[in-house]
């Protein structure tokens, strides 16, 4: 008696498919599988073969850390990595500060030509990177600046600012202005109000924006390629130049390191975002 309802329910569930249960449909599963394969097969292969104990990336000869060791001891690769960290670190600091100010200004103030200003400020997001790179190169030439880590950093700052600004602006959209008014009303100056009330609210946006800027800067190739001088090679450019000689597992290892860094930072950003989202709901 008691098993009867359960059985009939199970039968019903098999027969009818909820319109939202896409995954129940075979062709949907197939599409999903295909996109996963196309997206991740190259990456998975790249990572797998970084552990391959063979000089050529063709057949599997057993597991080894050898190429990581080799990559780590490759002085020029090592230098490039340090360069990348310097560039990404510096440009992130500057672009987060400037981008946050831009985002805040666009959120807060009304001024003539604001729409136009906003469009122009966000242009680097949509401009093809190659154009941005060429423009930067021409600019540095025009002001007679030698290409170096500084020029790379400056260009990275320029193209990551709008990303930070967009993130900050989105964050500020949910801000209750009366919080600032209340602070002011309770005797706080503008400056105190900013640090005690507005800034704490911005922090999640700042962290998300900074991580984004860091990742964008770290793996940028095109703009860096145009603005890098002799001796100011960054990690992605070094990997590219190594490829031109031969595809060795060492390149795979270096790329894997880049992937791991990028993925972890993205993961951190996502976890932080969801934490804050949860914190706000409670």
């Amino acid at each position, binding site marked *: 008696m008691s098993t009867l309802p359960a059985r009939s329910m199970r039968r019903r569930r098999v027969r009818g498919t909820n319109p939202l249960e896409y995954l129940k449909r075979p062709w949907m599963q197939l599409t999903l599988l295909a996109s996963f394969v196309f997206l991740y097969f190259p990456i998975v292969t790249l990572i797998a073969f970084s552990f391959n104990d063979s000089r050529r990336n063709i057949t599997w000869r057993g597991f080894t850390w050898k190429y990581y060791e080799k990559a780590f001891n490759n002085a020029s690769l090592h230098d490039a990595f340090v360069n990348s960290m310097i560039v990404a670190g510096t440009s992130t600091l500057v672009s987060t500060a400037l981008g946050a100010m831009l985002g805040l200004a666009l959120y807060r103030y009304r001024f003539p030509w604001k729409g136009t200003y906003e469009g122009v400020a966000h242009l680097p997001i949509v401009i093809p990177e190659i154009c941005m790179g060429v423009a930067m190169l021409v600019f540095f030439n025009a002001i007679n600046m030698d290409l170096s880590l500084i020029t790379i950093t400056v260009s990275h700052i320029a193209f990551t600012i709008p990303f930070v600004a967009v993130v900050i602006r989105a964050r500020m959209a949910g801000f209750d202005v009366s919080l600032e008014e209340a602070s002011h*009303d309770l*005797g706080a100056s503008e400056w105190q109000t900013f640090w005690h009330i507005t800034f704490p609210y911005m922090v999640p946006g700042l962290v998300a924006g900074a991580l984004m800027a860091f990742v964008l800067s770290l793996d940028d190739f095109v703009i860096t390629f145009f603005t890098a001088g002799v001796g100011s090679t960054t990690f992605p450019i070094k990997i590219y130049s190594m490829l031109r000689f031969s595809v060795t597992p060492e390149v795979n290892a270096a790329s894997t390191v880049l992937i791991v860094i990028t993925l972890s930072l993205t993961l951190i950003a996502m976890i932080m975002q969801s934490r804050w989202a949860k914190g*706000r709901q409670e």
Partner: protein
Amino acid sequence: MTEQAPIIRVRNVTKRFGSVTAVDDVSIDIRQGEFFALLGPSGCGKTTLLRMLAGFETTSEGEIEIDGQPMLGVPPNRRPVNMVFQSYAVFPHMTVFDNVAYGLKVTGVGKSEIAERVKEALTLVHLEDFGRRKPDQLSGGQRQRVALARALVKKPKVLLLDEPLSALDAKLREAMRLELVHLQHSVGITFVIVTHDQDEALSMADRAAVMDHGVVRQVAAPATLYEHPNSRFVADFIGKMNLLEAKVAGLSGGRLAIDIEGLERFEVPHDGPASGEIGIAVRPEKTRLSKEQPAAGRLGLKGKVSDVAYYGNESHILLDTDTGVRFTTTIQNETRRSDSSILIGDDLWISWSPEDTLVLSE
């Protein structure tokens, strides 16, 4: 006269937002220690006036004095007033304690004094045990208490409240009315409250200013606003009112002779001038229904009951008089069956005493 100087003086204040005049040539004096209400329909400029007192809006014209000091160019953080916001604006990332302590911390009050005063303020609003909670662990009513404590801990000369009860449910709102009045009595601070709810204003305030389209129509105690409104607008806005258009037939010896269609000429006591077209008003509860023509000396109109609205303690009867004017009257449901005695379609007389007739020249 030993009248104290007003704590707030508003003189000919106008506020324009572009082409919109939100506050139009307003002059009000608010007395030390009084519970003052700014009352009016939505969009009449109450919030704008309050924000000018707090310093969040500048005046387009006119001047505001608080505690004898002109407020022109004085920013909100330098004014001896504090505000309770409609959304409460409790700082979400601070505990209740830190919220209340904030206004003292930023002005450099010492740690031990802060602890003492915060405790005092939290006790005042019955939140002694909530100091360590975060705002998201509080109910709406508790959050409002935090906002109150946070403002009161500053010991302002005037506390400004913008629709403080509008976010609460009906029961709590009623309870909070009483509590706010008690709070005001115990701290002795002048309260200026903004509300669009006339019951709220009448039940809490010592005096209220009724606003309409940026203009102050009347400033008076609740009973005066109710029994002696100075204009059709105030009469209609405060409580329910039956309004009739009439003509002045003559004025002599403090008695005004009035002509209304459907009634014989009658006289009401009236001081002050009156002429031409006037408004005649009578409160529903001051009218009486009867089957027979009312006694001489009462003013009576004949009509047909068009609606009976039951409110539990009382019922509101709508009567369409033969002259085409619709009257509302209230009857107390003194027994459990009393509402059934009047039915839609009944032919009845409505009557009232000439003394209860209000003359409105505006």
